[in-house]
């Protein structure tokens, strides 16, 4: 078994990022979009931790703390917006957001 190097971690985080991106782009329900947004942020977290491990200093991991907080704040804002939208429009699907046009 070759030892697990930095490249492997980056491949995994890149894969996670792409899955998240794909999820955001294609899924219709807002909640699933939020989940894939979270996925993308956590992919970045994984990359950060791997980089910090291979760079030998802790800056990356400190950054992970703050990104988790930011992700939490972001989701709470997103949920609040879904509540606002649901009170207005009874549905949380993306394609009804079409009133603002070119």
């Amino acid at each position, binding site marked *: 078994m070759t030892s697990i190097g930095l490249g492997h971690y980056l491949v995994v985080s890149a894969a996670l990022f792409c899955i998240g991106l794909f999820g*955001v782009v294609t899924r219709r329900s807002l909640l699933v979009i939020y989940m894939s*947004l979270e996925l993308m942020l956590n992919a970045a977290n994984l990359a950060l931790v791997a980089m910090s491990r291979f760079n030998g200093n802790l800056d990356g991991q400190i950054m992970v703390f703050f990104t988790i907080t930011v992700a939490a704040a972001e989701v709470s804002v997103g949920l609040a917006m879904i509540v606002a939208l649901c009170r207005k429009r009874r549905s949380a699907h993306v394609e009804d957001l079409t009133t603002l046009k070119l």
Partner: protein
Amino acid sequence: MSSIDYFQLLKLAGPEAVLALAALAVLAVDLIWMREAPIRQRQGAGAFVSILGCLGAGLCALQMPGFGSFANGMLVIDPLTLLLKGALLVLTVFTVLLSVDRDFTEHVGEFFALILLATVGMMLLVSSEDLLMIFVSLELTSLSLYILTAFQKRSALSAEAALKYFLFGGMAAAFLLFGLSLLYGLSGSTHLGGIAEGLVGKENDPLLIVALAMTVIGFGFKIAVVPFHLWAPDTYQGAPLASAAFVASGSKVASFFVLAKVMMLGFAGVHGDAGWRHLIAGWAPLLAVLALLSMLLGNLVAIVQGNVRRLLAYSAIAHSGYALLGVMSNSGEGMASLVYYTVTYGLTTLGAFGVVALVEERTGSASLSSFAGLGRRSPILGLSMMVFMLSLAGIPPLAGFFGKFYLFVGAIRTGSPNIGLVWLVVVAIAMSAVSLYYYLQVLKQIYVTEESAATVDVTGETNIVTCCAVGALAVLVVLLGCFPNLLVGPVLAATGSAGL
């Protein structure tokens, strides 16, 4: 980590602390004393406390020591960042003035608190040279702006605009974070200076290209450059007026400055050259493509717009294209021209949104036809809208013209023997000639077309506070246009001393 001296931190982050306290104070005032007061009084009190907070922060910023840095780059104090903080505070005061006497929401305290928190985020963003602090303050600004966009409970547009802004913003934040993490991985440090040294050997490392692309995508969203601009028209149209004005002015000033800092300091080694016949790979050609696209698309689509707010949105996209020239010129003078351009652009857009607010209040819609005959009804409003529109088009005696001139001089002076970005400057000037058409369309509605009877007079009294704010902004734009040295002198001295 050496033991951090927290009191020194408090001293350095004085303005931000004062502003945060002011935000909490506004909340407290609104929730405790003003529980049952009518909405006008609550707005007056909230506005008064926020302006007091801004003045306090301004005073605190004045007494700051000339130079200072906390935890190597986390919080950098130098004349340039102080100047930008002052500009952001001025923009905030005018935004607060624009949001008084508007009845789009009952949660008055929260609205003012969020504006102040967004300003805190911008001030931190402007004064940091550390990836962590840049990301956190960028997100603080963006999140408060998302909520500000969603504040108009009654209209469905506001919630929808906020959601679109949020989704784009979230995705861009993820891209930015991934780019920053790759950047950290390659260079081993999170401080911009350390990154530049760390990247010395790795110019053509594929990972660096991915990191660069991701970072540019992340910031591209914030400054609404073309491929990432889709949120801008909807947000400008859907958001309540004061938040749309703040998104257009404040966040653009801060994000352009931090983009310039990251590119000039962080990616210093990979500048490349976007000159006409000698293209060298780097971030300059990448930004050149973005600038070209946003100038073309921004101006051309703005011509067909019927709603003045969407027109301002597309003109904002076009102006981001022009401002990118300042980032690409990668020199102290380029930075100075960028700061001058974005600050004067911020003031002009705020004023333009102020006039749109008053017209919307009187006629209920921001469409072009609702501006008919404004010149006759209220001459001051008509005159200041003419000042704002002509300054955006770049007509001389106004600030917009000198801003563009200074930008183009900086851009052409980059590779001075071979007049570097002259092709982009030619496109920029041609496009600003095109932009004169749709700015004159607005002025035609104001001055030439007679007021049709259809524009019913919705509310009798015009909003005095907004009128004075709009008038003051118009005077400021004319003053900065006729005597640009008021702002260019200090900015140039500051960029010189900041060692850019």
